[in-house]
């Protein structure tokens, strides 16, 4: 018999597969508190499984029919009220205990920590990318959330305001927090905080259409200083370089500007990701490929190659136009 809890345990020991499952390796207080509840219920359930499963197995071995058995029927037991009462009360008390723990933990987790050092981010889910707007600083970026680390008494909790532009999505970065849905015409809230600098990956967890699988999240947790520097950089309008005038013009003429914003230019579309500082991001198309010149070219030529059905159409641009636009985009640092 395959012990499922055993499997989970074996997967959690780092030596087995060289990797700790994300939700057992929290990088912030929110995910950490979920982990402790998870360990508790996992432990309780494992004990129940071993006791009940073991009893069944023991009974099967002990009472299986043997050839030496007589042909008469075994004694018949019709039931026993005290025994049945006992195994009604024991599970009832167990789940009562679990329910109380859960209710306390829900209230704790839902109540966000003090607001004095908070950072607000508005998260808007789109088919199939993430918009991260920093309302305090007046800019927005896509797919890559950058937040300051929470160090010592310098607690930085991040308040996410979750909304959707189209269908239901779900924001899930397992090492930082559990998931919360982004629902159109409803505003949800969640908070998270990160104790360690680093990069954490997440993904959309609610089926949202054709390319649900390619709606990934990257969270960069950086030091306070690096965060301030990043914010200052993002607040600036797009860089201007005379050498890429052609690409800039093609971008404005060829409908790119209808969907994308590049602050400081005439491009003010809101349907697609903000490209003002495109080259400061690590990946393209919601985390599915590295942000390089080659990938950018491939993507603009035909987005359907890597993300069939995505909302960015194949504009059937000539190679020269694509080249010019890519050259322009490469200057948007």
């Amino acid at each position: 018999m395959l012990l499922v809890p055993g499997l989970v345990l074996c997967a959690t020991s780092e030596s087995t597969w060289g990797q700790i499952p994300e939700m057992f390796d929290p990088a912030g207080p929110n995910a950490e508190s979920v982990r402790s509840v998870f360990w508790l219920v996992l432990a309780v359930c494992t004990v129940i499984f071993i006791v009940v499963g073991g009893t069944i197995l023991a009974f099967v071995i002990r009472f299986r029919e043997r050839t030496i058995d007589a042909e008469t029927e075994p004694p018949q037991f019709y039931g026993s009220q005290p025994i049945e009462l006992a195994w009604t009360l024991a599970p009832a008390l167990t789940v009562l205990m679990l329910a109380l723990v859960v209710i306390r933990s829900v209230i704790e987790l839902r109540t966000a920590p003090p607001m004095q050092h908070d950072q607000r981010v508005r998260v808007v889910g789109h088919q199939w990318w993430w918009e991260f707007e920093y309302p305090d600083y007046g800019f927005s970026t896509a797919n890559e959330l950058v937040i300051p680390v929470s160090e010592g008494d310098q607690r930085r909790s991040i308040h996410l305001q979750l909304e959707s532009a189209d269908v239901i999505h779900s924001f899930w970065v397992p090492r930082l927090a559990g998931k919360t849905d982004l629902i159109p015409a409803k505003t949800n809230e969640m908070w998270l905080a990160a104790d360690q600098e680093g990069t954490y990956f997440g993904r959309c967890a609610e089926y949202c259409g054709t390319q649900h699988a390619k709606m990934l999240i990257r969270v960069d947790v950086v030091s306070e200083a690096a965060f301030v520097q990043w914010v200052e950089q993002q607040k600036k309008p797009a860089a201007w370089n005379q050498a890429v005038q052609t690409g800039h013009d093609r971008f404005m003429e060829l409908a790119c500007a209808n969907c994308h914003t590049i602050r400081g230019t005439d491009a003010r579309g809101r349907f697609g990701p903000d490209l003002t500082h495109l080259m400061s991001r690590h990946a393209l198309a919601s985390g599915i490929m590295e942000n390089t010149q080659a990938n950018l070219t491939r993507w603009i030529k035909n987005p359907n190659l890597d993300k069939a059905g995505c909302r960015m159409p194949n504009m059937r641009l000539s190679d020269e136009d694509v080249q010019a636009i890519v050259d322009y985009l490469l200057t948007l640092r």
Partner: protein
Amino acid sequence: MTAAPQSHAHDSDSSFRPPLTARLHDWVTTVDHKRIGLMYVIMSLLFLVVGGIEAMLIRFQLWTANNTLVSADTFNQLFTMHGTTMIFFVVMPMIAGFANYLVPLMIGCRDVAFPRLNALGFWLSLFGGCILYLSYFTGKGLYGGGAAPDVGWFAYAPLTSPAYARGGSVDYWILGTMVSGIGGITFAVNLIATIVTMRAPGMRLGQVPLFVWMMLIDAWLILFAFPPLTAAQVMLLMDRHLGAHFFDTQAGGSAVLWQHLFWFFGHPEVYIMALPAFGIISEVVPVFSRKVIFGYTSMAMATAAIGFISMGVWAHHMFTVGMSDALDAIFSAASFLIAVPTGIKIFNWTATLYGGRLRLKTPMLFALGFLTMFLIGGLTGIMLAAVPVDWQVSDSYFLVAHFHYVLFGGSLFALMAGFYYWFPKATGRMLGEELGRLHFWLLFVGFNVLFGPMHVSGVLGMPRRVYTYQPGQGWEVWNQLSTIGGVIMGIGFLCFFGNVMHSLFRGKSAGSDPWDAWTLEWATTSPPAVYNFEVVPEVRSRRPLWDLKHPEDPDWKHE
């Protein structure tokens, strides 16, 4: 109409065999509960093959990262069709088939209360399935044409709105499940009327076999759960075609409303699929342990309790939509509570094993498989009822593992136990024991290799319903294990179908009571005549055949 099957019933006695068209005509026009039951089961097995092939395509696509075996659209259609098929057109018809065939036999009557309504119910279910699969030829999906629905089996709004689901594929999903749902409602009405009014003389409601008890509660659950689904589907149709805005978020509608309405059906539905399994286990375990069921009354009461509580836990599917703390707490506590009556059942079955003489024939093997697999599914269910844990693992592969342990390791294993147990009654021939054991072990091992690793890919962060994933997250090995498990199960099912085909024609003759069992269906011939019983035995206890076989120590002395 009723004359046709009766003339057919005698053909086993005589050498006269009517032509094929006449026999098919008999089947199509029959109102005999046994034939309708068998047609339900055959329909279920056909859809099981289709749903299984869909599952295998899903598994092969997930073998490696960035696999391109099927496209995103095809994959999304596959998991939608797999879920819808398995729930509405495999498990539900199989249950209806078992209940139709067995309940009148078990309570000693000649047919169900409304035989023609019964036939209507079957044909509605079958044509519902046909409508669903017509979509492959004439529907239109989220992206591209001529395609099956691709919105997931619970079809969350607003993904189903005309803005995001152009074309007709969602309409096929609505109509297919709605039509078969209406079939389900007629089945439930019929069953309740039959059990309440048509029991054999002397048989009190407290003396019917536990399978009948659980089907009674099950039918009530169907009656309460399906109409809200049908209503929600009508609302969705109005949204899609008549310009209503129930779920249209861009015009003040609510996406969360659909979730409430759907899960108000969807969660009782889980128990609708589980209770008949409990019933089958409550018949198989005692007979193969050679002991009376431990605690009949508490089993029946626990079933009723499950029925009540299951109507009040639906929002535990929605812990991530941002409900209030109070709602989260209430639905979490109610979900925990359901572990109590379920626990009683598992303990009572285990206690029935104690002191018995366990005959480990194929039905019993499947019943024991059910006990252990359902135990795991129930325990992961407790984990999911813990709200913060749910925030992490819901909509991940951990959840997929959980409900397959409940519905496959639970319901389908029990249905297989029932299949091996009652096949001799329905056909007059035994299923091969050797192939049966092989089938069980391949299924048991394959099942655990398939669904065990999904717990791990879930805690590793793999969300459900993704057609592909990025490399380097450690997900490959667990997915490959799952796929291998799927192949093993596929071979197991080949053994099963081979066994059925072989046994239908060459199987050992069964006689009327091959398992030395105690309920009324074994008191008549195998297969039973159209009129079921020539003489209904006197019923004075829960095990009328035990009383006949053990006149020195009959049950009614102890009840």
